[in-house]
């Protein structure tokens, strides 16, 4: 297993260095990498299955070390692990490691079960490969599945606010327009990276009436808005969002004006981690983004703080529009238990 570590590290560093076209691209590449790993892995006996699981867990650990803020990449690793664990459980293969076996009451009560010693490993590998390919297809079609629901959420003569650039929200709005809804969009420009400008151009190209507004105008215009639709980078286990900085203010303004906030996100962004405050999963961008060549005597006294991400608590969100439909915050624990195994929540154990 150790001989694979340099291979893993090379791949992860290539992800880090890449063009950074968004974490969806990174997830697809990770999925392909894991599929090829499963294809090449030597499965000679039943005892190789736990080794496969620990190899992929090791990959997961390395990815959270090398790419700490790419939560979706680690989610893909967890999804693949869940697929393998489920298939192994269907075939009654013993995959628990010694120290994991009895650490919870449910584990205790399930302890006395019989395991099979002969299993069709070729069939197991084929099923796992098929499931991972389904996962890849889910990654590729999630935007389509989300935008299909657009006509149920957007109606004519509505004013919708969005913030910054999100390709999922873009497709969502375009889909509503193509169905025939006539609505207006206010786009917050999202300083300092000004991604809202790109969003405006692309919406205008689809003939959607768009207005670009500054961040400071968000609260003032919120009283005229019917809905706020935003995308997110990651969806945490308690329903909180990890998004680009600036959206927390938009959500607070929406709460103050009783405007519903809809979040579009694919299920691969749902993570079993819990953030406790703004700093748990955050990093600071370079002061260059806000200060153009500061004078040397300024630098001594001025502190430039440019957080990259915001954590938005779940109370501010009305509905999560995922590729399996619109979900409420109280339902997320079900989705978590369906798509992830609890042994994989903490990949380091």
């Amino acid at each position, binding site marked *: 297993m150790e001989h694979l570590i340099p291979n893993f590290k090379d791949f992860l560093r290539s992800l880090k260095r890449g063009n950074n076209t968004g974490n969806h691209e990174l997830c697809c590449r990770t999925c392909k990498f894991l599929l090829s790993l499963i294809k090449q892995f030597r499965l000679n006996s039943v005892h190789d299955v736990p080794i496969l699981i620990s190899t992929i867990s090791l990959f997961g650990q390395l990815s959270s070390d090398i790419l700490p803020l790419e939560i979706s990449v680690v989610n893909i690793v967890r999804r693949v692990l869940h697929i393998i664990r489920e298939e192994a459980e269907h075939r009654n293969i013993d995959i628990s490691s010694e120290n994991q076996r009895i650490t919870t*009451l449910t584990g205790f*009560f399930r302890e006395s079960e019989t395991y099979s010693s002969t299993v069709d490993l070729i069939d197991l590998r084929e099923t796992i490969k098929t499931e991972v390919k389904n996962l890849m297809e889910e990654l590729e079609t999630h935007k389509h599945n989300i935008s299909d629901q657009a006509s149920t959420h957007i109606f004519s003569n509505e004013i919708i606010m969005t913030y910054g650039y999100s390709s999922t929200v873009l497709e969502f709005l375009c889909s509503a327009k193509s169905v025939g809804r006539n609505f207006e969009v206010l786009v917050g420009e999202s300083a300092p990276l000004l991604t809202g400008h790109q969003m405006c151009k692309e919406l205008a190209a689809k003939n959607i009436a768009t207005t670009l507004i500054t961040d400071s105008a968000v609260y003032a215009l919120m009283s005229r808005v019917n809905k706020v639709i935003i995308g997110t980078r990651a969806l945490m*286990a308690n329903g909180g969002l990890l998004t680009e900085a600036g959206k927390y203010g938009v959500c607070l303004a929406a709460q103050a004006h009783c405007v519903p906030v809809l979040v579009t996100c694919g299920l691969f962004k749902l993570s079993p981690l819990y953030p*406790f405050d703004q700093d748990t999963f955050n990093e600071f961008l370079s002061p260059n983004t806000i200060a153009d060549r500061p004078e040397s005597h300024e630098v001594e006294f001025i502190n430039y703080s440019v957080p990259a991400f915001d954590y938005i608590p779940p109370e501010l969100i009305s509905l999560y529009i995922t590729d399996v439909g619109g979900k409420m915050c*109280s339902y997320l*624990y079900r989705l978590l238990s369906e798509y992830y195994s*609890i042994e994989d929540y903490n990949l380091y154990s």
Partner: protein
Amino acid sequence: MDAVGKILEEQLVTHGLSPAYAAIRTLTEVIRRSNESTGQGLIKELEQAKECLINEPHPLKSHTGRTPLSVMSGCDMFLHHIHKTLSEGDRAEFQNIKTKLVSQGLKLSEMRPICLNRITQMALRSFKDGQVILVHGYSEVVVTILLKAAEKFNITVLVTECRPFCEGYLMCEQLCKAEVSNKLIVDNAVACVMESVDMVMIGAEAVVENGGVVNRIGTYGIGLIAKSFLKPLYVCADSLKFVRMFPLSQRDLPEFTQGTVKAWPGHKMWQEIMTPIVDLTPPELITLLFTDLGILTPSGISDELIQLFR
């Protein structure tokens, strides 16, 4: 059934087990001493023992000042497991099943340190340097977490007196011994200090189906204050405290949650006050629950209960 009460007392006092685990040990003893030769007979005897443990909580009250709710939840879970084992097992091998149940009961009652360890690992992630934590009531789990957190982070703990049982003093004693910076405050001062508090951490006597928590009287009030100040409220409990109860209001808690306490000796007119000993904190006021099954949101509790009682 006096013997049952005596066994429970012994477990609580000499072995220092917490009530739920002591109840499981007691039931294990009952199985070991039982002369029954059929599954049904054994179950009947155990049900009687459970009734006795819940309805005569003298050893429980005098030693720990708690209600029999955790005893109830521990017994329910163990009895469910026994039902399942007996129904799946072969009738002819009854003695083997009995021995197996006894060994499982003993192992289960020793799981407390493992559960505590897991809960502590998870709860530690919510701490940061310089935080002020408010605690209410005495909970072994919370004490363990605070002591572990104080080793890594620089924290201050505000402990409520927690009348009428004054458990806050016990908590303070333990914190002082470990040299954790703490301050004892009067119960009514909670609203006053809430703005300087970073989080509220409580244990639980029982976790009910909708994700609400039954804990020492006063917790509901602290939950309401924390919610209005937007401070997180974390509940730390092991999964043995999960109970299949769905109380819709404070009045829906069982009879034994009411009790009498001695009045303040300064005024001669009243000797005793009738008061509820515990109250129900609804799930809307709870941010997260740290349990050995993982970090859970209140909405996830019902699912976990179904898993445990399957």
